[in-house]
């Protein structure tokens, strides 16, 4: 049973295209995240949702738009892909029900490897 799953695992596309990455968690968690890990393995938060509400929105180009249809899903849509968007994108989830959300265990998905040509 996969706790946090992402699709697709690999995504190769041309510059200028629009693509989506899907994430689902079956842990019953309230909070979900999107992270970007660059080629140097630096992991940086992009967005966080709690119960379908956006709570963290880092300085990310507005070509990136997250969507949470329900608290078990958080998808990431990227418009007009650029070379610099090439990276591994990780979805994660945490309980999100306590006072100290940032101290909670975050469960990461396996990542989506995006390559923009």
């Amino acid at each position, binding site marked *: 049973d996969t706790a946090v799953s992402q699709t697709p695992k690999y995504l190769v596309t041309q510059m200028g295209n629009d693509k989506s990455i899907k994430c689902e968690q079956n842990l019953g968690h309230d909070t979900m995240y999107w992270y970007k890990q660059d080629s140097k*393995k*630096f*992991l940086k938060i992009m967005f*966080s949702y709690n119960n379908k509400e956006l709570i963290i929105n*880092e300085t990310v180009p507005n070509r990136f738009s997250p969507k949470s249809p329900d608290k078990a899903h958080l998808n990431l849509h990227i418009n007009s892909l650029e070379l610099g968007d090439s990276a591994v994108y990780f979805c994660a989830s945490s309980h999100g029900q306590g006072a*100290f959300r*940032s*101290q909670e265990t975050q*469960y990461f998905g396996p*990542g989506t490897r995006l390559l923009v040509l």
Partner: protein
Amino acid sequence: TQLLEQSPQFLSIQEGENLTVYCNSSSVFSSLQWYRQEPGEGPVLLVTVVTGGEVKKLKRLTFQFGDARKDSSLHITAAQPGDTGLYLCAGDEGGSEKLVFGKGTKLTVNP
């Protein structure tokens, strides 16, 4: 400026050796977490430390949170090839909602 500095960036040792990796900052954190990431997978939480001076042990791994809550260390005793991976520290600066990650220490343990 990187909020969390990890050192060393790369470490290659022989099975059975001991090692320590460091996570340093000039900022105070409410908590610090250590994750291990294996190739092709997402990070997996090893430990969370929340009290200054706290020491936590996980089998051969010992984690310490600095007294001033600005730094942390991870010590591995008698390293094994299964310890190979990228070790990431992450903290919530001033109790903010988000985790900030260090750039990681890539550990290779050779048999």
